């Protein structure tokens, strides 16, 4: 009886296997690719990778980039604000000797890094003849699978006036890096596609006048955004609009910000809230407003609606509006970069969370390495590959 039972059912349908596997952590998925070719193909398939991303049980910690006093100068950590657990992650190779490091963006578990080297200043503008050695360069990295890819050189070399953006386009299932000039409409825009593995120059219909673009960027639903403003004098720029580049139809739009009150008395931050673009305005009077942007599908095309979704204050906290260094929103809570209070030890990291819905303020202290937290990004563990479709072998 037992034997016949076992002989009868030894086959489990594909969709059941997929449903079980998408609940596994990336570490197990990488391991179980070795079970058989069928399992490898399933785990690597774009539809399975997508199912994994949308599975609600995926951990969504914060990705911290910190600066250390010595070599290597940078380290990455994952912080779960709920359990307050910190997980050190292995640095991608190539960054240990860098002099400066920036996170361009983090999307579906892929992180785009801009890596600078010591002699950066000496070689400005960079000569484009020797590939690989002249910094800065871009790196695509998946911390969970530890895969990384050095992005090929841009057509026109980087300089300090360039701005970058990184986003995922769900329409063609492609990750893209956008490089444009901070004096937008002066230089062409370059777009790198992970699927094609190359850069492409894109011409945009000139927007009216020159727009100054800040380094604040965010991307969601196939559109990359920057905070921008109409240029007045060289360093006097008030950010009054959002510049967007749609990765599907490569259309550039300038979207005015809502009326945020006096320019002098507030700071702005481009942020994502519930998969929508939002702006945090922090006023001198310790008020924080969250404006969420939505496309008005009823009105004529190109109309955008800003809604003031939440207002909360810092009154019940000991934070001044200048100390609040909002980095991101994690589960309706504003996450501020750690603050220092007199007497705190070097390894004390004092994180602040402000719940937008309840105005509840939470502070927690984490003891970790002597480092300075430079950047906090949202992150989701995934096994999205940094290899493009045309070039299966990774360039290292």
């Amino acid at each position: 009886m037992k034997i016949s039972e076992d002989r009868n059912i030894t086959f489990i349908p594909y969709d059941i296997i997929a449903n079980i596997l998408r609940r596994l952590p990336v570490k197990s998925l990488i391991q179980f690719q070795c079970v058989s070719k069928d399992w490898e193909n399933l785990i690597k398939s774009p539809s399975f990778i997508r199912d994994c991303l949308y599975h609600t049980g995926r951990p969504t910690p914060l990705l911290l980039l910190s600066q250390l006093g010595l070599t290597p100068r940078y380290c990455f950590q994952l912080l779960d604000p709920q359990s307050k657990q910190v997980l050190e992650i292995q640095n991608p190779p190539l960054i240990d000797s860098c002099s400066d490091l920036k996170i361009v963006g983090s999307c579906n578990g892929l992180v785009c890094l801009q890596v600078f080297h010591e002699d950066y200043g000496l070689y400005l503008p960079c000569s484009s003849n020797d590939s690989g050695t002249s910094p800065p360069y871009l790196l695509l990295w998946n911390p969970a699978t530890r895969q990384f890819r050095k992005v090929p050189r841009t057509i026109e070399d980087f300089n300090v006036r360039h701005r970058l953006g990184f986003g995922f386009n769900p329409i063609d299932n492609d990750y893209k890096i956008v490089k444009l000039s901070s004096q937008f409409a002066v230089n062409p825009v370059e777009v790198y596609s992970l699927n094609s593995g190359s850069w492409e120059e894109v011409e945009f219909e000139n927007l009216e006048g020159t727009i100054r673009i800040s380094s604040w960027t965010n991307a969601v639903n196939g559109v990359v955004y920057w905070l921008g403003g109409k240029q007045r004098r060289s360093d006097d720029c008030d950010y009054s609009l959002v510049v967007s580049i749609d990765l599907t139809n490569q259309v550039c739009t300038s979207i005015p910000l809502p009326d945020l009150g006096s320019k002098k008395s507030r700071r702005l931050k481009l942020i994502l809230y519930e998969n929508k673009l939002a702006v945090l305005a922090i006023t001198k009077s310790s008020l924080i407003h969250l404006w969420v942007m939505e496309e008005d599908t009823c009105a004529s095309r190109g109309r955008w609606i800003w809604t003031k979704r939440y207002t909360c204050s810092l009154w019940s906290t000991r934070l001044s509006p200048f100390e609040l260094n909002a980095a991101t929103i994690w589960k309706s809570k504003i996450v501020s970069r750690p603050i220092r209070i007199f007497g705190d030890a070097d390894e004390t990291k004092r994180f602040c969370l402000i719940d937008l819905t309840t105005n509840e303020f939470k502070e927690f202290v984490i003891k970790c390495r002597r480092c300075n937290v430079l950047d906090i990004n949202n992150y989701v563990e995934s096994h999205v590959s940094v290899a493009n479709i045309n070039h299966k072998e990774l360039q290292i």
Partner: protein
Amino acid sequence: MSSSVEAITVLSSDGDEFKITVSAAKLSKPLNWMLEDVCFSDDCDEVPTIEVNSKTLVKVIEYCEKHAPRANSGASDSDAEELKKWDIEFMKMDVKDILFHILMAANYLHMEGLYDLACQTAADLMKGMTVSQIRKIFHIKNDFSSEEQEQLRRQHPGCSFD
């Protein structure tokens, strides 16, 4: 529809008879259809057969009877908490039984809750297993050539084929 029916009788694939209450049967679409058939026909002598073995059917019915009151009326948070604990106890069985019997039955009987629970439990059990343990459970042969194994190892240095 006759309201006097409180339970229906079904046969397992082994030919054993089982009783399942009307409210519990509502957790499964196919069982619900059977139930309607039984209620509509005046003299139905035929006992429907369910292609699930007796051992598994006992578990499935146990799950249905436990979850039926909540599914039919909704429940408080404390009930939900209690039910969660019960689910954990309920799923304490061999991973093979979950995979080849409970999951297949939940799939066949269209029971979303049990299917989800069984998938999650199986995933939790598989998390710590080695590749060869997985192959043994799923009756899968290693069909990689040594070159292919080498290539996968190059991409993911931590990979092990054992």
